C-alpha cells in the first residue's frame, strides 16, 4: 500500500517535502503517528539495523481481529476425533484384551503370562522361514533355481 506524499510549492532548486497537518489522506496521519514511534530520520546509522518497537495499540487490534477471524473460519472438529486420537498401540491392546476375555479357563491361566504389546506385534510379522519372492536377498537364488529347472 503506497504512502501519500504531499509536495509543497516547488522552488527551482528543490522540492520541499512535508505532510500537511490538514491532509485528508488517512495514510498521512498514520504515517506521522508511525514516525513518532519509529526512529527519527536524523538518528545514527545503527538505529535502522534494529527494528523499531511495534505499535502496542495497533498490534493489540491486529491480534484481536486475528483471533476473531480464526474463530469464525476454524472448521468444526471432526466427529471421530476421539477415535483419531487413539494410538495404534491402544487399538491393538484393546483388541488383544478382548481376545483374552474369550479364552477358555485353560487359556486364561496362560494369559496370566500376557505378552507385551511389542511381542504381540511380533506375532503379526511373517515367519522368518517363509519364502518371500520379493525379498532382495533371496531373489538371486530363486532365479538360479528357476534356470536350473528350465535346463
Amino acid at each position, binding site marked *: *500500500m*503506497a*504512502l*501519500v*506524499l*504531499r*509536495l509543497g510549492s516547488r522552488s527551482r532548486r*528543490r*522540492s520541499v*517535502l512535508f505532510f500537511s497537518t490538514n491532509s*485528508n*489522506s*488517512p*495514510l498521512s*496521519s*498514520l*504515517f506521522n503517528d*508511525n*514516525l513518532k*514511534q*519509529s*526512529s527519527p*530520520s536524523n538518528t545514527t*546509522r545503527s538505529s*535502522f*539495523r534494529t*527494528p*523499531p*518497537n*511495534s*505499535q502496542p495499540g495497533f*498490534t493489540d*487490534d*491486529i491480534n484481536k*481481529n*486475528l483471533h476473531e*477471524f*480464526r474463530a469464525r*473460519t476454524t472448521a468444526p472438529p471432526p466427529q471421530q476425533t476421539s477415535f483419531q486420537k487413539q494410538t495404534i498401540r491402544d487399538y491393538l491392546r484393546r483388541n488383544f484384551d478382548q481376545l483374552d476375555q474369550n479364552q477358555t479357563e485353560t487359556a486364561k491361566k496362560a494369559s496370566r503370562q500376557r505378552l507385551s504389546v511389542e511381542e504381540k506385534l511380533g506375532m503379526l510379522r511373517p515367519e522368518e522361514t517363509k519364502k518371500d519372492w520379493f525379498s532382495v536377498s533371496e531373489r538371486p537364488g530363486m532365479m538360479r533355481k528357476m534356470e536350473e529347472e528350465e535346463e
Partner: protein
Amino acid sequence: MIIDAGAYPSPLGYGGFPKSVCTSVNECMCHGIPDSRQLQNGDIINIDVTVYLDGYHGDTSKTFFCGEVGDELKNLVKVTEECLEKGIAACKDGALFRKIGKRISEHAEKYGYGVVERFVGHGVGTVFHSEPIIMHNRNEKAGRMIEGQTFTIEPILSMGSIDSITWPDNWTTITADGSPAAQFEHTILITKTGAEILTKC
C-alpha cells in the same frame, strides 16, 4: 487465504480502510476498494497485498491483465514492471535513495509514461509505514541506503496525466484525465552488495 496462512491483512481497518487488499482497476492508480463491479475483458487490475505475520508486515503488488488487453496497455504494464526492476537494481548499502527515482524516471520517460509523484514507497517491517520515504520520480532527497533496511519500491506509471483525484471515500485515487495507470511493488532488504526481494514467490 491470508488468515488460513496464519497472517493478518494489514490494510484491513488501517486508517479505516474497509477491505483486506487494494484492487485498482484501469484509471485507478492506487488504493482502490474492492467492490461489486465485475471485471471486464480488457481491464487491467492492480492487486496490492500486505500481510502481517510474526510481528512483521510484507507489502507487494502486481498488475494483471483481464482477458484480451490492448497492446498499449500491455506495454504500460510491462514498462511499469521494468521500472520496479530498475529501481531495485539501484539499491545497495551506501547508495543514494534518489538513485531509485532517477532510474525509474529514465526508463519511464523513454516510453512516454509519467511517473506518479504523489504516492511513494516507504519503510516497512514491524510498522506498516515508516521511514525512509522512497520517491519514484527524479528528486533531490538526501540520504543513503543502509544494509539491513527494509522498504518498498512501488512505482505507478500513467499513460497520461500524473495528477490525481481522490474519491470521497478518501482512498480511491484515479488519474485526473482518466488515463490508465499501472503499478508494481516489492518489499526489499538492503544488503552489502544489492537488494534482496522479500516478497517474491
